[in-house]
């Protein structure tokens, strides 16, 4: 497909697409598409997102611009709690960021390899979308971590008793390491996107603080791992500008 689609931009993804109007779950019989507004459609389905959801993404892709929001919480899911011994990494785009004292340095290339398994499904889907030749695929960057770890600590203490987890000895991963892990995920997604001729759209600078964490105005009050609806609304405006008004390469 060359040039602009006549259809609304399709957003497909899981929880990090919710703030942009993609429901996490819908009642049976609804879908696969739900109109968000005149410019955007949501691909809906069951949660957790399964192969059927992503198959549906490919099926709905013909003639469309598709924005894929792929996972986005890998750094929280694996590294919420500080490891013993602690580790740190050097991000190529920000090599001068300080390193945590006493941390074991892990090569950035090794961290990217660690994330690779989480992108297998994305690679498969992008490859299929590219082979269709009738759509433009975009991979959207996911929100950076929040700066204030006290919010995270408070939520942990609220929920930890359900899991019998001793928080006196548990420490959170330092926020700068969290950020570096997030950055490594963004870079990995960008490389995956480029590999299959899709365009990676990073989180714009105006969503971030000076030191590149998520601005508090875009953070949810309780769920520290996701951005809020204000973020989602503004992100849709950004996508519209980038995809429909910007000079982007077609996937075919």
């Amino acid at each position, binding site marked *: 497909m060359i040039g602009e689609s006549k259809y609304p931009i399709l957003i497909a993804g*899981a*929880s*990090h697409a919710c703030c942009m109007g993609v429901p*996490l779950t819908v009642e049976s019989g609804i879908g696969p598409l739900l109109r968000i507004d005149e410019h955007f459609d949501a691909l809906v389905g069951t*949660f*957790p*997102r399964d192969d059927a959801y992503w198959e549906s993404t490919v099926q709905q892709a013909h003639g469309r611009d598709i924005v894929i929001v792929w*996972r*986005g*919480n*890998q750094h*929280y*899911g*694996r*590294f*919420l*709690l500080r*490891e*013993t*011994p602690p*580790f740190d990494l*050097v991000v*190529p785009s920000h*090599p*001068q960021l300080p*390193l945590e004292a006493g941390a*074991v*340095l*892990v*090569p*950035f*290339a*090794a*961290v990217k*390899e*660690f994330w690779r*398994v*989480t992108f297998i499904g994305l690679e498969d889907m992008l490859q299929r979308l590219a082979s269709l030749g009738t759509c433009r695929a975009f991979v959207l960057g996911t929100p950076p971590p929040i700066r204030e770890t006290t919010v995270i600590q408070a*939520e*942990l203490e*609220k*929920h*930890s008793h*359900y*899991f019998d*987890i001793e928080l006196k000895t*548990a420490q959170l991963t330092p926020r700068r390491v969290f950020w570096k892990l997030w950055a490594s995920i963004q870079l990995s997604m960008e490389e995956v996107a480029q590999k299959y001729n899709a365009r990676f759209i990073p989180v714009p600078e105006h969503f971030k603080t000076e030191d590149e964490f998520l601005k508090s105005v875009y953070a949810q009050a*309780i*769920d*520290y*791992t*996701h951005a809020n609806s204000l973020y989602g609304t503004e992100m849709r405006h950004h996508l519209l500008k980038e995809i429909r008004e910007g000079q982007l390469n077609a996937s075919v």
Partner: protein
Amino acid sequence: MHPYKSAPSRSFWSRSVASNFDAAQLFSFEGPLLRKRDRIVSAGSCFAANIIPSLERSGFKYVRTEERHRIFRSIPIENMGYPNFSAAYGNIYTSKQLLQLIKRSKGDFNPIEDRWITEGGVIDPFRPGLRYPAMSEREFEVLRAQHFNAVLEAFRQCDVFIFTLGLTECWISKVDGAIFPACPGTISGTFDSAKHEFYNLSVSEIVDDLVGFFSELKSLARSPRVILTVSPVPLVATATGDHVLTASIYSKSVLRVAAQEFCRLEPAATYFPSYEIVAGPQAPSNYFNEDRREVSTEAVEAVMAAFLSNCENDGVCREPQDDSNERIMLEIERSELLTPSVCEEAMVE
């Protein structure tokens, strides 16, 4: 009566090689070669890595100061022997490379050609096969500093250093004499005849290197001992222009003489005859695989049997304890349990 009259049977070929050969008898050393309390550090060519599993299974303490972080043990391991030894220096083929390693780690030698900047990352010319190279010069420098600290820590802990001499042929920098583990351009980097040249180490140079290294080691460790071996593995290729067979025999001969000379000079050094066990005329043909270069499992077992028979040994075989996988799951599970209390998506993992 002449001296041969009173010589033991091991002094006679007919009585100890042509018949009654026992590899354990090749070696004579007062006291055990290794004691159970010894902390062992080793380095050397590919053959050197073979001894480590046997030592650990026999309950000896092998020093390791640079292992990958346990949380990343799910990814492919490093290439080319880097994870095999006490620190991630990989294969050390020559005496000059060994001396260079300890000097660089101490900050006493800083090669001018210390990095190759490529599209695939910033490559360490002295560890060119790393699977996970640095992606920026800053990362390169901090990872290298971490590596040097690990090397020094290994040497500090060392009671016994086992070194397997592998090669005499090497490639060096014309600028400052830095020695590369492989000819630039073979694994990574680019060969430049203006900067790189071939060199074949002599007996005296190897002895000088070993003396220099041991002096450096003694400045770090408390009363270390050295065990030298010579790798029986022939050369993959020679840059001498000679046939690879004659070049190999020459190289191994030089290494063997140098090992003997160093042990003669240094009371704390001992030579262990793994080369003779594998490559001597008494060795069975199956000690080498079909290519007549790769050493067989039977050969390694024979070497280790002879080696361990000269060590303090309770005869109990131990499987290495590794609770790292269990701990990794525990930490990941803790993170995953906590996160989905506010994010169900994390449950997908």
